[in-house]
């Protein structure tokens, strides 16, 4: 078997194990390329049965318009049951990345919202698309990762995982986060998307888009949610996104890669990491690890 066949088989095994050993699993859907791959794998794992679990999108209210349109297309598929959760408390308080900064926004609208949604539905296994090659603290994350009743992660109390035998036992109130794409790299994900013909949000492909340059980063002017600073004038540049998070926390990069082949070729010569375009990660050395302890994916 070649690399992609092996990665695919491992992911199917993990998805089926989750299905066999949990009471109420859910597939976390974040609209990005990894979610697209995860959904494709889940369909394969359980075929010919329809998807046996719902999808959950935690909507921060600050996704690009193209992302929401894409999500709604996915949700319209006959086998998909898409749950969308918004932290209404946060909406009432008017929390947003521009008014409150990236850290507060992500905490309230993403981490707290996620915890609310999981608790409200009583999910005991939440399947996510995180990969170990994304970031240092992820490299040490288990495939079946335990969360306590407060949904916190304790990196020092992780269960050893040998072979493909997973310990799925949990006490009441505890839950599992499951990561079928743990062993995939960003390049594997794109090659698989090409091989399988998986649809992704068009923002990944280069096109002329209105952007402003702020603190050395290109921010796309998606709509009126981004207040322009004095003297800022949107310019049209050929840009694409490597990673899609909250607008305007996700930085665009100049690129001419408008096909899958071009994206893959660009990646093989790229010297920037995938999460470099996420503002949250750069604020403190261990920021993602802290967020993970608090319940982030």
């Amino acid at each position, binding site marked *: 078997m070649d*690399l992609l066949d092996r*990665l695919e*088989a491992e992911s199917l095994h993990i998805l089926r194990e989750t299905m066999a050993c949990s009471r109420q699993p859910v597939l976390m859907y974040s609209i990005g390329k990894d979610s697209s791959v995860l959904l494709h794998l889940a369909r394969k794992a359980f*075929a*010919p049965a329809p998807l046996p679990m719902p999808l959950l999108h935690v909507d921060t209210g600050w996704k690009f318009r193209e992302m929401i349109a894409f999500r709604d297309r996915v949700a319209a598929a006959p086998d998909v049951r898409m749950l969308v959760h918004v932290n209404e408390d946060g909406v009432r308080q008017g929390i947003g990345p521009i008014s409150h900064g990236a850290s507060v926004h992500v905490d309230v609208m993403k981490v707290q919202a996620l915890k609310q949604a999981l608790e409200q539905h009583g999910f005991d296994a939440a399947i996510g698309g995180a990969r170990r090659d994304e970031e240092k603290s*992820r490299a040490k994350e288990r495939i079946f990762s335990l969360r306590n009743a407060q949904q916190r992660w304790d990196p020092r109390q992780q269960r050893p995982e*040998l072979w493909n*035998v997973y310990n799925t036992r949990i006490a009441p109130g505890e839950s599992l986060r499951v990561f079928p794409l743990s062993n995939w790299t960003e390049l594997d994900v794109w090659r698989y998307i090409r091989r399988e013909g998986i649809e992704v949000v068009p923002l990944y492909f280069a096109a002329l888009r209105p952007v402003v340059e702020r603190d050395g980063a290109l921010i796309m002017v998606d709509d009126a949610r981004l207040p322009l600073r004095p003297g800022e004038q949107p310019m049209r540049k050929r840009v694409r996104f490597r990673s899609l998070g909250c607008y305007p926390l996700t930085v665009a990069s100049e690129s001419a890669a408008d096909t899958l082949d071009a994206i893959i070729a660009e990646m093989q010569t790229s010297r920037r990491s995938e999460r*470099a375009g996420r503002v949250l990660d750069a604020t403190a050395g261990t920021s993602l*690890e802290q967020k993970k302890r608090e319940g982030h994916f």
Partner: protein
Amino acid sequence: MAAPASPDLLRLITCGSVDDGKSTLIGRLMADTGAVPEDVLEQLARDSQRFGTQGAALDYALLLDGLEAEREQGITIDVAYRYFATPARAFIIADCPGHEQYTRNMATGASTADLAVVLVDAGKGLLRQTRRHSYICALMGIREVILAVNKMDRVDYAAARFEAIAREYATLAARLGITRVTAIPLAAVHGDNLVQRSARMPWYHGPSLLEALHAAQPQVEATAAAAPLCLPVQWVNRPHAEFRGYCGTLAAGRIGVGDAVGVWPAGLRATVARVLDAGRDVAQAAAGAAVTVTLAEDFDIARGDVIAAASAPPEIADQFACHLLWMGEAPLLPGRPYALRLGSASALAQVTEIRHKIDVDTQEAVPARTLRLNEVGYCQLSLDHALAFAPYAHNRTLGGFVLIDRISNASVGAGMIDFALRRAGNIHWQHVDVDRAARAAQNGQRPRCLWFTGLSGSGKSTLANAVEKRLFALGHRTYLLDGDNVRHGLNRDLGFTAEDRVENIRRVAEVARLMVDAGLIVLVAFISPFRAERRMARERFGADEFVEVFVDAPLAVCEARDVKGLYAKARAGELRNFTGVDSPYEPPEAPELHLLSAEGALDVMVEQVVRRALAD
């Protein structure tokens, strides 16, 4: 443009002692193959200033240490997985810490590895830890090692030094059953023989590390591909009445439409009707694929069953000899039931004997009564039902298992099955015509086990005694097993350590079960301090046969009574492992009866127990 072929995959583990330069080696290997992006290197430069141990130079260890605690303490706690690739091959490195106490992590990393890179400092030669790491790799089934003799620059690139180390390691490897060793002289810090062959060691004609990694054969996959079919059923897919598919990952061999197969442990014969590989119908699928198969026959097959070639059935047994690596913070308790996961099958398992433990540095056998964290033992394991299995050396999936503590749910043991023990297989239950129902009817009562648990001095024996008198007066056939009395006879050989307490309860539970089988109402008055053992006792009985009576009195009251003077001795340090003083009591969470013995009147409590004992 045609898509280029996808590379294949090699999984490896890197082991080395703290200062062997392992992180430098991995960091450079990744950097030199383009796997470390610029912004990560910039972050590394910032981190090196703040936490680094290499002065002004880049500290590659920081690139690899992921967790906050690790960075602050400058150590690696946990296994990390690293990824890099060349056009021909992708690599997953399980990067394991070199600290002695983390044997557990090394076993985890080795369990999925095809090959191990063992680092040795050329200046220091083979260390205790080199032997330890090589032993664990061999134990986990790795047969191919690349011996990276690092820091050759410190020994002036001397061929003689390299050759002496390589020779010594070859002897060790042969003894451990490692069949293929490639020794490479390196200076990772300068990149010598890492990616390209070094001009500084013209006497060396072998491959660079990266070349050797390309030349290695993915061993796990090759072994599985050549073996007969083995498919553990992971999940049954039943979307509607017309489709019943068995999902699982092919642990070995091939499966094709029309194949004659057996389903184990039931021993059913069947024919494969359809094979779906990742959702698509195919004629055949090979080891490693995650398939769904349907059978022509309409059998009721469940998760944990194994579909195997009709001509090559797996072994079926409920007792094994195995190597067991202990990973729990609390030591192994022989006799305590743990949850076992083997492939997709589950069972309850107890260690019935530790034949010896193995000193991982010298590989000598040492006598042992228990296993502590990071110790390896050769054990006998007994399951509550028979499973299909294969020796670990033949099949990692059907031969490797994990033990889980049933209360904390922690993964506490990793086992590698050696062979089945035939003992249980040969001792069949003798069929008898007078069965338990007949004996119960003759006695005119419902046989039961009344299990009294509580602290010493809580009033268990007094209460049990009074209950027995009352039952006897009512014409019932009873027997009272009292902790102290049993310890004078049946359990005379047992002390009060945690291991002996477990065995104490196991024997009493067995005796009580035989007596219930004989039609008696059995009263057991034992402190029985651990939940796990009371649960084990309960599981030996039918649903309504076991009545747990929690005789609950505050410790202060029991201690004030101190009928036998034991608390005084324990407080004085003359008595070790005394429950409530220096050994814990875990109160029942859901007893059938909870009696506050310090407050209630004895005759009232007796009536409560008797009523429960005689209830329909």
